[in-house]
C-alpha cells in the first residue's frame, strides 16, 4: 500500500533552497558575461552596445537582392562597395577602391583596390572577388542587377586592379557604384563555400561575408539582428562592440523605449507632432535627404485628362502651408523637379495658391468627384498631408475621397489606369545622387515609379539622349526633361523631406549621407 509522504518544514526549506540555487546559479549566460569572459575579464557593461529599432523586418541581408530602405543599415555596415558617397555630400570617394579612373571615351573604369582588406570569413580581398561579386549580381538578376547591366566585360590584371568596360557610355555608372543599393564586394564564404546552386542566395538570407566594420552575427527574423564589431577592420575601429537592430513595429512603442533608455535612437518615422515635446535627455538631428513628397495626377481619365483642370492644381495647392503643417521643420517646400543636390539650375516650380482662380478652373471640370490614394506610413504623416490636401481641393470645389493603399497596390495602377485613383500621394527617393536615377524611374513612360502612367515620347527620348551625354550637355537635357514634367502638370513636387534622427543625448559622431536614407554610419557613432 502506498502512503502519501507529508511535506515537512525541512523538506520545504530544502526545496526552496534548491530553487534559489537554481535561480542564482544555473541560469542562461548573458552576452555581456560572454563578452567579459572573451576579453579576459574586462567587464562589458553594455555601454558599448547600441540599440536601434527597425519598424519592420528587412527582406534579406543579401545586397544583390535587397532593394528596400528598412534594412540598408545592415547592408551598409557589413558590406562595402568600391566607392561611396562622402558624408553630407554627393561627392564620390573610394571605399574598397583606393583610387579610380575613367577613360576618355567613358567606356573603361579602372579601380585600384586597397591592400590588406579581409572578409569577415578571414580571406584576403582581391580583384577576383570583386569580379565574382559583380558577376553574381548579374546572375542573381534581382532588382539591383540593372546597375551592372551596362557592363560589357571585366578584367583583373593583378590582385589589386579591377577594370570594367561598358557597352556604351553611361553617365550615372559611378553613381550606381556609390549607391546604397550599388554592387558590394562579397567574400568566398558566400560565393564559393556556401554558393550551392543559387549563387549563395539561401545562405545569404541569414549570413554575410563582407568587409565592413561590423559583421552580422545573428539574424533572428521578427526579433533582432545583431551586428558585432569587426576587430580585423582595416579602417577606424568602431566604438560600439555590438549594434542590436530590434524589430519594433509600433512607432509609439519605439518612442517610449527611447524615452526609457532601452533604445539609443529612432532613425525614421518619428511622429513630427511629438518632436516639440521630447524629454531633455533626447536630441533631434535633422539631415538633408533625397526623399520627396509627390502628388501624382492621373492624366488618363476625367477630370485630369483635361490639361486646364490639371493646371488648376497649381493655384489650388498651398504647398507652403501643407508642408509646414504636416512636417513642421522636418521638410521644406520643393523648389525644382529633382532633389536639389542632384542638379544645378533646375526649372522653378510655378505653384502659387490663388483660391479664386482655382475655383473658376475647377468649375469647368467635367466631374468634381475625385479619388486620392496615399501610401501607408507608420508616422502617419502621409495621412496628415492627404487630409490637408483634401481640404484644399474641397475648398476649390472638388469632392475628394481618400484611400490608404500599400505600395504593391500602387504598382498595379498602370495595368488599369481608368480605374486607378485620380491623385496619388507618395514619398520616393532616387537610387543615387544623379538626376538620371530620379528621372528614369519617375518621369519616363516605362519608369517603375511612374505609377499613373504619364507618357511623353519626347521626354523619353531626351532622357535616353542624356544617358551617354556628359557635363553641361547632360545637365541641359535633364533640365529640359524637368521643365517638360512641370509643364505636363502630371506630377507635383511638394516637399523635400529630411531625415529626422531622434537620439539619446549621449550619442555623438553622427555621420550621414543624403543618398543613404534612414541610416547613419554606425562605425562613426560614439557614446559620450
Amino acid at each position, binding site marked *: 500500500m502506498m502512503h502519501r509522504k507529508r511535506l515537512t518544514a525541512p523538506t520545504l526549506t530544502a526545496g526552496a533552497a534548491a530553487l534559489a540555487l537554481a535561480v542564482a546559479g544555473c541560469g*542562461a*549566460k548573458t*552576452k555581456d558575461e560572454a563578452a567579459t569572459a572573451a576579453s579576459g575579464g574586462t567587464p562589458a557593461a553594455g555601454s558599448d552596445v547600441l540599440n536601434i529599432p527597425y519598424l519592420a523586418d528587412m527582406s534579406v541581408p543579401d545586397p544583390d537582392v535587397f532593394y528596400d530602405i528598412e534594412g540598408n543599415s545592415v547592408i551598409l555596415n557589413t558590406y562595402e562597395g568600391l566607392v561611396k558617397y562622402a558624408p553630407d555630400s554627393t561627392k564620390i570617394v573610394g571605399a574598397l577602391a583606393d583610387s579610380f579612373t575613367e577613360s576618355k571615351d567613358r567606356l573603361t573604369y579602372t579601380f585600384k583596390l586597397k591592400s590588406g582588406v579581409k572578409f569577415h570569413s578571414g580571406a584576403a580581398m582581391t580583384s577576383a572577388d570583386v569580379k565574382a561579386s559583380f558577376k553574381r549580381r548579374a546572375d542573381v538578376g534581382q*532588382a539591383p542587377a540593372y546597375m551592372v547591366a551596362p557592363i560589357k566585360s571585366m578584367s583583373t590584371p593583378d590582385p589589386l586592379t579591377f577594370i570594367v568596360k561598358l557597352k556604351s557610355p553611361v553617365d550615372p555608372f559611378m553613381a550606381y557604384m556609390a549607391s546604397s543599393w550599388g554592387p558590394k564586394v562579397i567574400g568566398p564564404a558566400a560565393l564559393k563555400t556556401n554558393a550551392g546552386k543559387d549563387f549563395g*542566395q539561401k545562405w545569404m538570407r541569414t549570413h554575410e561575408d563582407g568587409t565592413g566594420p561590423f559583421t552580422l552575427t545573428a539574424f533572428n527574423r521578427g526579433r533582432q539582428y545583431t551586428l558585432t564589431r569587426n576587430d580585423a577592420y582595416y579602417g577606424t575601429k568602431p566604438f560600439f562592440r555590438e549594434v542590436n537592430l530590434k524589430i519594433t513595429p509600433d512607432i509609439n512603442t519605439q518612442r*517610449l523605449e527611447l524615452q526609457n533608455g532601452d533604445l539609443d535612437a529612432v532613425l525614421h518615422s518619428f511622429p513630427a507632432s511629438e518632436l516639440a515635446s521630447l524629454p531633455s535627455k533626447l536630441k533631434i538631428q535633422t539631415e538633408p535627404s533625397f526623399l520627396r513628397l509627390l502628388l501624382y495626377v492621373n492624366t488618363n481619365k476625367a477630370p485630369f485628362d483635361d490639361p486646364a483642370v490639371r493646371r488648376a492644381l497649381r493655384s489650388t495647392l498651398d504647398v507652403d502651408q501643407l508642408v509646414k503643417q504636416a512636417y513642421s521643420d522636418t521638410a521644406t517646400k520643393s523648389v525644382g523637379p529633382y532633389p536639389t543636390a542632384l542638379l544645378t539650375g533646375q526649372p522653378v516650380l510655378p505653384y502659387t495658391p490663388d483660391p479664386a482662380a482655382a475655383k473658376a478652373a475647377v468649375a469647368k471640370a467635367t466631374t468634381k468627384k475625385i479619388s486620392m490614394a496615399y501610401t501607408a506610413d507608420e508616422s502617419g504623416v502621409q495621412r496628415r498631408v492627404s487630409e490637408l490636401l483634401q481640404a484644399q481641393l474641397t475648398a476649390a470645389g472638388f469632392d475628394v475621397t481618400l484611400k490608404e493603399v500599400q505600395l504593391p*497596390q500602387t*504598382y498595379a495602377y498602370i495595368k488599369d489606369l481608368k480605374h486607378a485613383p485620380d491623385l496619388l500621394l507618395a514619398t520616393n527617393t532616387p537610387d543615387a545622387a544623379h538626376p538620371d536615377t530620379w528621372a528614369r524611374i519617375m518621369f519616363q513612360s516605362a*519608369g517603375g*515609379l511612374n505609377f499613373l502612367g504619364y507618357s511623353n515620347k519626347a521626354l523619353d527620348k531626351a532622357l535616353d539622349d542624356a544617358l551617354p551625354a556628359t557635363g553641361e550637355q547632360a545637365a541641359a537635357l535633364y533640365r529640359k526633361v524637368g521643365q517638360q514634367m512641370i509643364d505636363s502638370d502630371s506630377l507635383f513636387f511638394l516637399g523635400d523631406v529630411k531625415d529626422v534622427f531622434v537620439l539619446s543625448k549621449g550619442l555623438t559622431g553622427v555621420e550621414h549621407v543624403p543618398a543613404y536614407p534612414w541610416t547613419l554610419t554606425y562605425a562613426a557613432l560614439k557614446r559620450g
Partner: protein
Amino acid sequence: MSTVLTRRVLALVAVLLGLSVIVFALQALIPADPARAIVGASASPAVVDAKAHELGYDKPLPAQFTAFMGRMAQGDLQESLRTRNPVADDLRTFAPATLELALVSAALAAFLGVGLGMLLASGLRAAKVARLVLIGGASVPGFLVALLAILLFYSALGILPASGRVDDKFIIEDGPTRLLLVDSLIHLQPNVFFDAVKHLIMPAFTLALVPALAIARTLDSSLNQVMREDYVRTARSKGLRERTVIVRHALRNAAGPTLTMGGLQFGLLLGGIVVVEQIFAWPGLGLYLDQSIGYSDFPAITGTTILLGTAYVLVNFLVDLAQAWADPRIRAI
C-alpha cells in the same frame, strides 16, 4: 463520439477549402503587382514580366486557381516574396511565439473568466466591483489597452518590458519545443523563464481581457440557471456549503455553454493577435502576417491564414471533447 470526430474532421477540410478560396479571391480582386514590388522600380518591363511569369501571375485566373488549389492539396505553401524563405519554414519560425502567447492568454482568460463567473454567481459584493473593472477594460479597444498598459507598467512603474518575447541579452538554448517557458525550464535557465514570463504578462492580459468577460458572463448565466435545479436544492438541503454546491455540483453542469463560448472566443483572440503582436513587438504570426500584407506577399498571407484557421477548428474540436467530458449525454452521440 465518433460522429463528433468525423464532423470536426469534415469541418476542418471545409474550413481549409473555404479559406483557400477566400484568400485566392482576395489575391485576385485586390489590385497589386507583387512582381514589380519584388524586382523594383528600376527594373525594365521585360524583367517585371519575366518575374510575373515565374510566379504564375501572368496566367488566366482559372489557371491560377487550379495551380493554387493543386499546391494547397500537396501542402506546398510556396516561397515568401519578402523573406524568400519557404512559407512553411517562416511559419515554423513565427508560430511558436504565437502558440505560447495564445495558450497563456487562453489559460488566463479561462482562469479570470471562470473565477469571475463563480464570483458573480455567488452574489458577493466584490464580484460587482470585479465585473465593473473587467467591463471597463473590455470596452476599451485592444490597442488602447495595450498602450495604456505599456504607459503604466513600462514607462511609469518600470516593472514590465514593453516589447519582445525575451531580453536578447540572454544566450538562450534553442528547442526542443521552441516555447520559451518550456524550453527554459528544460535547459535549466530559470532567469530566462522569469524574463519570458515578464514579457508575456502585458500581451497575454491584453488578449485575455475580452474573452475573460465573455466567459464570465456565460458562466454566470449558466450557473444562475443550474442553481435553480432540483439537485442543487437537494444539495443545499443536505447542508452543504454554498462553495461546495457550486464547485462540486453546479459547475460541471454549467460548463457546456461556457466551453462553447470559450471556443468562439479563441477565434476572437486569434484575431486580436495581429494588433497585440504589432504593439508589443511579439515575434509571432500576427507580426509576420502584418508585414506580409504590407508587401502583398500572398503566399505568406495564405499560409498564415490557413494555419490560423486550422488552429481555430482544432480548438473547437477540443471544446467538443471537453463538452463530452462535462456532459455524458454527448459521449453517447
